[in-house]
């Protein structure tokens, strides 16, 4: 079997590909391994111990690590509200644009991509006066940060939902359902949502991942989330701060794996459809 050749004729060999993968792997692995090694250190006396890990889950230390638990709770709450914003605002808007206002698709795409081009610090400068109004209406509870996060996750959520929308013939399926007697609500719940499940799941997971890793906006708007809690914790107990960071990384990595599996499922499904037709 001949080796695959790309259009330019300069496809890297198997060895080069493995080398690149190795270098990139080492680049990512060294900091993570260093973090793990750090959390196992016994202290200035030298040696290694699991005490920092076990201490984190010891009920006796609950008050000591309260700031972390509060930050984690806030972040999870923010993740839920952000996902709700994505599902209740972005998803219906995208479906509506696809079905009724296809001419606006480019405009919507442009709007959704903008946040990725704006640095978080610039976003905060713009959001600060907005949040003075938000605070008057909704109070200054931490969950209100989800309005800002709803904007920051737009590019990722839009892309994942749009790729699913583009893979199914939304218009024909909706028209078929309508002709069979379905109301618009039934079309949405019984036809579109089940067929957009992969995009919705991926958008939700990626939104959770983004929210769990967000620091700048929460810090500059003086709200506490997981990342700000880790920073605070690092000043009193750097071992636990690193452990929390590692756990957060592992959780996000797991989410990305799930997203990858969902995407692979969608691709193989489309491939099966193409093979049949």
């Amino acid at each position: 079997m001949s080796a695959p050749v790309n259009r330019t004729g300069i496809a890297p060999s198997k060895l080069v590909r493995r080398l690149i993968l190795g270098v990139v792997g080492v680049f990512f692995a060294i900091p993570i391994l260093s973090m793990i090694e750090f959390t196992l250190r016994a202290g200035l006396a030298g040696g290694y111990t699991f005490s920092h890990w076990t201490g984190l889950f010891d009920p006796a230390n609950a008050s000591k690590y309260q700031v972390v638990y509060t930050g984690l709770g806030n972040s999870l709450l923010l993740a839920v509200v952000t996902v709700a914003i994505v599902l209740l605002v972005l998803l219906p808007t995208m479906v509506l644009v696809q079905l009724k206002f296809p001419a606006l698709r480019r405009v919507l795409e442009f709007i959704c991509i903008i946040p990725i081009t704006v640095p978080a610090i610039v976003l905060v400068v713009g959001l600060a006066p907005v949040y003075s109004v938000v605070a008057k209406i909704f109070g200054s509870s931490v969950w209100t940060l989800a309005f800002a996060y709803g904007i920051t996750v737009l590019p990722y959520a839009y892309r994942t939902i749009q790729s699913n929308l583009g893979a199914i013939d939304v218009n024909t399926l909706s028209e078929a359902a309508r002709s069979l007697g379905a109301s618009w609500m039934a079309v949405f719940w019984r036809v579109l949502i089940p067929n957009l499940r992969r995009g919705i799941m991926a958008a939700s997971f990626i939104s959770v991942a983004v929210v769990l890793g967000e620091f700048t906006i929460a810090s500059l708007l003086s709200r506490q989330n997981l990342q700000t809690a880790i920073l605070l914790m690092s000043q009193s107990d750097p071992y636990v701060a690193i452990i929390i960071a590692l756990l957060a990384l592992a959780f996000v990595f797991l989410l990305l794996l799930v997203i990858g599996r969902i995407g692979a499922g969608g691709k193989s499904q489309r491939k099966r459809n193409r093979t049949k037709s």
Partner: protein
Amino acid sequence: MSSPQGVAVDLANITKSYGGQLALNALNLSAQPGEFVALLGPSGCGKTTALRSIAGLETIDSGTISINGEDVTDRPTNKRDMGMVFQSYSLFPHLTAGENVEFGLRMRKVGAVERRKKAAAALVMVGLDSHVERYAHELSGGQQQRVALARALVTEPRVLLLDEPLSALDAKVRVQLREEIRRIQTQLGITTFFVTHDQEEALAVADRVAVMQAGNIEQIGTPEDLYRHPETPFVAEFIGLSNRLDGVVSAGEVDVLGYRLPLVHAATADGPVRVLLRPEDVELASEGLPGTVISSSFLGSLRRTNVLLSDDTTMVAVQHTVRENPQPGEHVFLALSGTAVSVVPR
């Protein structure tokens, strides 16, 4: 499945435009109860727009659509009680064939037992009762369209709308399925509109064919009427194959290739015209117009031969039985059968 009573459908002065471009131009069309009407025409003639307007998928600018005299113009699609089969495969991918067929019944809040019974009967009708648990991606294109047909019919709609349902299928399946559609339609007696750009398909299955152009109906009639008595130059040229030959009309007949032939429309004004002569109205004969065979095509049950007449400029297509097999270069004679012909301005 019980046989629903067919309904009369009337479209009166339907106008629809897209950004100033008229898609339907004061369209009038009626279908009798249980009638199978094909909408035939070239791309962009408005046939699909007309069908979608009947379904309520397009909002018309003016005019009325009525079923059995009841105005349904402003009624939403889901309240019109019509079944529709689309050009592209429209089965819901997340449901099995059986669940797809049950969908319309579920929307009508039919009980689960009754639903399953009716869906099974509908799948039997289209010959797919053994595929009830299969998903769309596990079915071939033809099978998907059969399920779509069962899905459209299971609710016993008043009108069946078919939007080029066969165009994505291969030739053999197309013929099989169109005959099946006709059989089921006749069995159920359901009023049906069938959009197609394939004239053979339209002529083969429809009770009446409406030939459309520029958002309106050029002519509507039985397939035989359209083929033998086209009322406009467009229909004459659009329906069937014709030799286009120079001729001269005088006294209600036309002189062409030395023959004097009757006209389909005897009232045609005298003068030079283009004569549309069907290949089957020309015969290979033992004497007549001399010519040389250029090519001959085997078409299954018949053969079509192109003959260059002795003036070396006129090419005539002749349709004949496969028993005759003239070879390229062979000298032959042609005779016209004397059937009435259509003419268009030269």
